[in-house]
């Protein structure tokens, strides 16, 4: 005798009920937690931008420590003087520029008629004006992104990198402090030519003493992620050059 659970009708009814139950459960969870998750993501973006500017709670040695989430809104408002949106020659202020989705803009910009919106954050630290540029690129497995803070003469004052799924111990190390700290003091220009910053293998300069070569030391075993960082800086920072150069005139 066949069991009742072997019947086709039972199988179909079971799967329909399962899909409805699991589907509504997941939708419910996602809806219920959505506002909290978006808030967390906003805080994270603020923390990242501030980190690139060198505003953080790092100890002298050790891991990255962001401004804590309960303070971040206040610190962000106090340190970011202006949030700009650059569209071609148009520069407008927008207090919510940090919410612009770089990935979406990148896709939209494939349409030649679309004028891409480029967010730029103008902050102030120790009396110096810093320009924080958001970036997005590809690592080995998945997306990588980050922020680079430059001063008026286009010298890097700090960076922040993050990734969606690079290999722990290898590509994921771009998120480590020793890697990010290397970028400080490098210029993205070589005289008047835009060079970006290259993550270079074998340049024999592990603590980056040479600040004029547009190079930082790569992470062993993470070639593709490193190349991704190089390409990302070249591709995204370049778009801001017209504006940044106009500041110096």
């Amino acid at each position, binding site marked *: 005798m066949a069991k009742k659970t072997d019947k086709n009708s039972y199988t179909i009814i*079971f799967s329909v009920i399962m899909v409805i139950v699991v589907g509504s459960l*997941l939708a419910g969870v996602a809806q219920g937690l959505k506002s909290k998750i978006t808030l967390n993501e906003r*805080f994270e973006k603020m923390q990242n931008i501030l980190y690139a500017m060198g505003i953080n709670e790092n100890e002298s040695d050790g891991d990255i420590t962001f401004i804590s989430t309960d303070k971040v809104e206040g610190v962000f408002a106090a340190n970011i003087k202006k949030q700009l949106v650059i569209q071609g020659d148009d520069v407008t202020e927008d207090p919510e520029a940090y919410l612009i989705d770089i990935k979406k803009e990148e896709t939209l910009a494939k349409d030649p008629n679309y004028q891409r919106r480029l967010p730029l954050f103008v902050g102030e630290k120790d009396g110096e004006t810093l320009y924080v540029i958001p970036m997005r690129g590809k690592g080995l497995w998945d997306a990588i992104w980050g922020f680079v803070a430059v001063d008026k003469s286009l010298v890097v004052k700090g960076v922040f990198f993050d990734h969606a799924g690079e290999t722990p*111990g290898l590509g994921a190390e771009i998120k480590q402090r020793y890697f990010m700290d290397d970028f400080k003091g490098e210029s993205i220009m070589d005289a008047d030519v835009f060079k970006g910053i290259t993550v270079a293998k074998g340049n024999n300069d592990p*603590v980056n003493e040479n600040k004029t070569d547009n190079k930082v030391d790569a992470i062993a075993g993470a070639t593709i992620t490193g190349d991704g960082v190089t390409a990302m800086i070249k591709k995204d920072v370049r778009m801001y050059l017209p504006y940044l150069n106009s500041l110096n005139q």
Partner: protein
Amino acid sequence: MGLLSKKDSKLILDPLADNNPITIQVLGICSALAITAQLKASIVMAISVVFVLGVGNVVISLMRNIIPSKIRIIVQLVVVAALVIIVDQVLKAFAYELSKELSVFIGLIITNCIIMGRFEAFALGNGPWRSFLDGIGNAAGYGVILIIVGFFRELLGSGTLLGFKVLGDPISKTGLYALGYENNGFMLLSPMALIVIGIIIWVQRSRNKELIEE
């Protein structure tokens, strides 16, 4: 173990040693190679799998009499996927930092063959309490190997443990590095993980000859 009967405690203890999912059943190797470059990642993955397999086994076991046998694998997949997504969402809302650490592992948990293997081999035929113990046991057995491999790979590959520089600083040449010691970068790559697992299998079988297949 006063709490558990002898049979029940065997469910937990067996997978830790003589019936280990990785070294004996050779399941879950892919994630064991992929994420063990650091001890911290290994520990996080071990805890996540203990949770998912423990809860998943109970859910499947409770449903074991109503699951149509023709689509049981699909049902199992749905249960794991749903569990993992719920955990991910909850973490994103209440422990955002932790969820970022875990992001790489979420996908790997769903595809972990140990989970499907235990659902299919155990939870479909046993009660919830025994399934729970079996899930915890197997996930812990998996986790133990992960942590051993992660320990050696991080120590020999990066000279650190949980991020602390236990062997000195390779750049300013302190500690062991002052004597000319170098990190072995090869340890960070997956092939070395397989070799470390191979060594564990070798040690285990040479201590217990019964495990050697004819």
